[in-house]
């Protein structure tokens, strides 16, 4: 009945590393596969993930990363080819695993025949850059990430917060349930299992909030 994921990330560079930080904040168990020794040390210093040094497309390395028990494998290196090969090898070793591959061009929908999802991080980065350049007072949700994460969280069946009114649940300080999609949340708002809620959370307490929503 775990609410947390076991994730294998191929690539401990900028994208893989930042992704691992976000996942670790939520309490997910992350293993990073990275061939470069210096990058391995940098990731190890942050103490967020187990690190396997090696080539993620090598089945032996994937075994060492615990592919048999993983929920998700994400190929997040800078090379589409490596990422896709990692995902395909992972599926071969554990057919139940969900695969996510980072790709190098924006129109990579065709790849979803091979993997469960594709990401093109440059698009999100470009959005942030555009917002900064415009210097607007109104920014999209994605930019306020430094201090607050804005998340859509679905309440799981049987979770501690399921079926409770907002006023009954004591969230850790640094949490604000914003909306249930139908308006701004009031203290009487009931948290219903299966429904999604928009929540602003400080990174430090994300794991606790996820536990309340997911059990």
């Amino acid at each position, binding site marked *: *009945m*775990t*609410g947390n*994921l*076991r994730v294998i990330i191929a690539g401990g560079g900028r994208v893989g590393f*930042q992704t691992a930080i*976000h996942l*670790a904040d939520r*309490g997910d*168990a992350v293993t990073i596969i990275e061939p470069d020794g210096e990058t*391995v*040390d940098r990731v*190890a*210093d942050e*103490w*967020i993930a*187990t*690190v*396997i*040094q090696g080539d993620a497309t090598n089945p032996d*390395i994937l075994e*060492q990363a*615990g592919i048999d*028990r993983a*929920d998700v494998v994400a190929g997040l290196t800078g090379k589409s080819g490596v990422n896709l090969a990692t995902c395909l090898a992972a599926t071969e070793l554990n057919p*139940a695993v*969900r695969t996510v591959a980072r790709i190098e061009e924006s129109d990579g929908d065709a790849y979803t025949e091979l993997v469960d999802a594709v990401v093109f*991080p440059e698009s*999100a980065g470009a959005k942030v850059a555009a917002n900064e350049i415009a210097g607007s007072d109104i920014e999209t*949700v*994605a930019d306020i*990430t430094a201090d607050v*994460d*804005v*998340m*859509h*969280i*679905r309440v799981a069946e049987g*979770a*501690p*917060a399921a079926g*409770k009114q907002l006023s*009954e*649940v*004591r969230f*850790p*300080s640094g949490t604000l349930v914003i909306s249930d999609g139908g308006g701004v949340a009031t203290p009487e708002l009931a948290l219903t299992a299966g429904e*999604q809620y928009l929540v602003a959370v*400080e*990174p*430090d*307490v994300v*794991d*606790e909030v*996820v*536990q*309340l*929503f*997911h*059990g």
Partner: protein
Amino acid sequence: MSGQRNRSPEAELGLLDASMIGMGAMIGAGIFVLTGLAAELAGPAALLVFVLNGVVTAFTALSYAELASAIPKSGGGYAFVREIFDDFPSFMMGWMLWFAYMIAGGLYALGFAPNFIELLHVYGLSPAPDTVGTVAVPGIGLAVPPGLGLAFFAVLLFVAINAVSTAASGSVETIFTATKVTILLVFVAFGATSPMFSSAEFQPLFPAETGVYALLPAMGLTFIAFEGYDLITTVTEEVKNPRENIPKAIFVSLAATIVVYVAVVSVAIATLGADGLAAAGEAGIAQAATEFMPTGLPIIKNGGAIIVFGAVFSTLTALNAVVIASSRVAFSMGREGQLLPRFGKIHHRYGTPFAAILGSALVMLGSVALPTQSAGNMSSLFFLLSFVVVNGAVIKLHRERPDMDRPYELPYYPLPPILGIVLNLVLAVVLIVFLVRTDPLALLLSAGWLGVGAIGYMSRDRLLPSRRPEDEPSPDAVSEDD
């Protein structure tokens, strides 16, 4: 898992703080409660008992340091083993460790009670501990020894505190530890300079009838005094530069603890004598102190009261630590689907692992009814067994994941984990043999706990054949932050 509500965003615990957490968990009840009992078994060789236990523990400490540096999970022993072993072995590891902490809770509560009565006695508020009879509980018409009642009440108190509020942070722990160590140093300083010390008698070192073999059961009994450095691995998130500081903190805290223990036990044996120490039992150190500490001081009157206070304070802080530690094990097991899922949930109002704390409290309250020595034996036995598994995990990990990054790699692999396994097993076997002769109840309860766990695990698998945590649908937390 983080229960802390106001966790600071910056990592703030340095090497000193992290070491203090380990020392605080180790130097607590064990030294105050078990020195007398060790002297009873081994005579003046009780001193050797503590040194040797420190050496045995050092091998396991190396294993903990390597695992903690490579697996950034703040769940301690169970989390590491869960990462490496299959379902059943990791379940049994958690099951054993959970029990060890709970029984340790009972042990600390039992150690607290006589010391507390001694503290009252020093101020003339109650008769001497051994002369107190039973106290009738009004309303129930039941007569309970006051020690038992006190121990029971202490467990209830700390369970209640931890059930409704999240844990105190590392900096509070540093103050607690500094207090405990200071009190022990005062004890050592006054003891070593007292006239009783100069006429110290350490001969014969070993008891006449059992000789050097008396060491082993005494080591088994007091092994728990070196349990606690693993708590350092439960606060990793808050430690600065953890991959360097965690292994260092483990070694520093263990080394410092051995030094403190050796000093305290030497002074206790030298002043009170092994026989006197043995007679005083759980309140051994406290009684030794009242022998040589200056009297007639302002306010506190009797200098010995400081030491007795230290014993009361240490047993209570240790009790608090194991209430937290045991519920964390149960909580982690619940989250992994290895105990009732309810145990793996935090309470919607209190933010604490409420069910895990209450579940642990039941066993802890029950264990208060045990004789102190049985509680010490059982708790030590289960720590020994779980440490065998931790050492095994290091070896298994080296074989199966050779390419895993190990920021701290233990020296002379595979010697330390193999020695750790062998020595811990030897102590466990000696302890079991000793229990067969002297304490069949403790052995029966231990075997019963393992049996209940194994049967419970099997029947759960039979009832819910397809329910494995890996099969759960992925949570759909969608972050919009990048």
